[in-house]
């Protein structure tokens, strides 16, 4: 168990390309930290540098107070779970899980005891003498976990450990990983591209893009107070809605309708001398069916329902805002990463609102929606910064 400190950690490949730029991160003892971002954002490279599988070009990495930049993986006392599980195909489950202990010259009785113990925790006792090729995906994943936990390492590093499982199993394993980590209290760094995994597992989440850390915070902080357009668009499902707006001292003129500024927004926007043209971000739950709203205050907009999706607990209402889709470098990258760019959903900007299941919304009919401006964000289209974030 240990704390992991990254100071100005940078990875530059021989061809000059920067994979990771100046990452500063303090991971406390026992903390569960998630590195998340679209593919190619440098999250796996960062993990590999912590593991010692890739050299650190610049900066220092400390594990437990000791600088480990030049130490081989075996001297760092960390365990890693790979996306492919990387089980040794020629060894039985028992041998796989005992492998790190055998290398550490632990006596045979202790190896057996620890492997049995881990197998019990992971529900693998009956599979101990099988080869990995005779196991299902979920069982293989558990063996990989077992190999990591048998040796009580200083830290667990996990590189997309669940992405090869089917959706249902993934949710189950997610809770199991969370439970094991809490029980052992081992510092864990977990890489994923799935924001749901990041939000549900992490004590803190690090959002990365193009080798740069965008924001570090608890899941709630990232969700409620994204520092920029990228984090805002990446975190949350369905993701945040963006519309173009022009700003006057009191009002945001959006294609949905005029939204009067509340005190908080006016203060923040004035302080930062916001530009005239901005992007407004509204989470799906910032909308409310006006006919069901408890308080009657706040601005309202009237829209025509395009598609209605009833999920029982909630209803998702899709409608369009005139003025074409919002396009910035950050949002385009997110669209490409999520495959949205391939759906051909061009034309008007699509907006989704999450309403109470009791809504009277009908497809093709107009509906009045109340907008909760305390959950709205205003972004600078040029650099993507959140102009309503208190610390920006």
């Amino acid at each position, binding site marked *: 168990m240990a704390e992991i400190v990254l100071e100005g950690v940078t990875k530059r490949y021989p061809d000059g390309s920067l994979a990771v730029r100046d990452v500063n991160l303090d991971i406390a003892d026992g903390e569960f930290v998630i590195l998340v971002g679209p593919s190619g954002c440098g999250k796996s490279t960062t993990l590999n540098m912590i593991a*010692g*599988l890739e050299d650190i070009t610049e900066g220092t990495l400390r594990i437990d107070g000791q600088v480990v930049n030049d130490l*081989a993986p*075996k001297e760092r006392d960390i365990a*890693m779970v790979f996306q492919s599980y*990387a089980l040794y195909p*020629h060894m039985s489950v028992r041998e796989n899980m005992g492998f*790190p202990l055998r*290398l*550490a010259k632990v006596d045979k009785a202790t190896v057996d005891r620890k492997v049995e113990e881990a197998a019990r925790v992971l529900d693998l006792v009956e599979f101990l003498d099988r080869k990995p090729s005779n196991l299902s995906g979920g069982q293989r994943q558990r063996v990989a976990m077992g190999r990591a936990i048998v040796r009580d390492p200083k830290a667990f590093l996990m590189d997309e450990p669940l992405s090869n499982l089917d959706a249902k199993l993934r949710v189950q394993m997610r809770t199991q990983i969370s439970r094991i980590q809490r029980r052992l209290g081992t510092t864990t760094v977990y890489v994923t591209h799935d924001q749901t995994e990041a939000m549900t597992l992490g004590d803190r989440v690090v959002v990365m893009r193009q080798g740069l850390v965008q924001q570090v915070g608890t899941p709630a902080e990232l969700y409620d107070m994204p520092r920029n357009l990228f984090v805002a668009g990446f975190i949350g499902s369905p993701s945040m809605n963006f519309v173009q707006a022009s700003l006057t001292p009191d009002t945001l003129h959006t294609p949905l309708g005029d939204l009067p500024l509340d005190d908080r927004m006016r203060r923040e926007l004035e302080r930062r001398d916001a530009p005239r043209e901005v992007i407004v971000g509204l989470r799906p739950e910032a909308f409310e069916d006006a006919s069901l709203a408890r308080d009657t205050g706040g601005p309202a907009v009237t829209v025509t329902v395009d598609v209605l999706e009833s999920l029982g607990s909630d209803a998702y209402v899709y409608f369009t805002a005139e003025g074409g889709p919002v396009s910035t470098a950050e949002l385009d990258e997110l669209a490409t990463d999520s495959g949205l760019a391939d759906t051909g959903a061009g034309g008007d900007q699509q907006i989704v609102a999450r309403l109470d299941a009791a809504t009277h919304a009908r497809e093709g009919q107009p509906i009045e929606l109340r907008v909760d401006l305390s959950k709205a964000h205003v972004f600078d289209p040029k650099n993507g910064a959140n102009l309503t974030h208190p610390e920006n």
Partner: protein
Amino acid sequence: MAAVGRSHATRWGVVNVVVVLYALFPVWWIVALSFKAPSTLTDGSYIPTDWTWENYRGIFQTSEFTRALINSIGIALIATLIAVVLGTMAAYAVARLRFPGKQVLIGMSLLIAMFPPISLVSPLFNIERSIGIFDTWPGLIIPYMTFSLPLAIYTLSAFFREIPWDLEKAAKVDGATPAQAFRMVIVPLAAPGVFTTAILVFIFCWNDFLFAISLTSTESARTVPAAIAFFTGSSQFQQPTGSIAAAAVVITIPIIIFVLLFQRRIVAGLTSGAVKG
């Protein structure tokens, strides 16, 4: 349906029998010759009229053949061992590491395999004579090793490429040194490839005639294929046909045993990489 299936099977059966007969006929011929007595050697029959072990007894009575057999076994085994060990390490580097001059190295090894051995025999003869390894075991082991290394590197690097890189990373994180990772994880997984390569290299060394005849002059390093060429009849007027046939059969046996034992591994080895398993 059944009738169609049966006629289909029959047709294939006939084709198979024809191919097998075509392939095995020369083998049977030499086996038949080796069991014939000198008097019936030229009777033109494909089945010996009176079976005799005379030819086999004859070749094992002279040191000419037994000594050559020892040379063959020794030289082929040592050359195979060295080629496989070096080839394994070289192939691992080729498959796994990025280093300057890698393409040149691969090109060079292809180049070696490209030259027809006959064009190199005269220079080799002169080199070996001047450095004093002509007509010795090393004099044959070194060229065999050189010419089989490209084959070994190519076959083995295909195997190494099949092994997921993550396994090595996992081994390193699990606390293995690079040498331990290679020995405990990579080599066991590449074992089928190593076997295949070893057998192919062994067959190459075992069957070689050109180097064996050119780079030896006495019994001290002459291998069986070369020694057979020096067989003489028991008298000046007798053809050594029977002895040659017997010797040919004897040196075929180890290869047959090898191939039968490792048949499945060889097939798996030669086809690996073709289909993702």
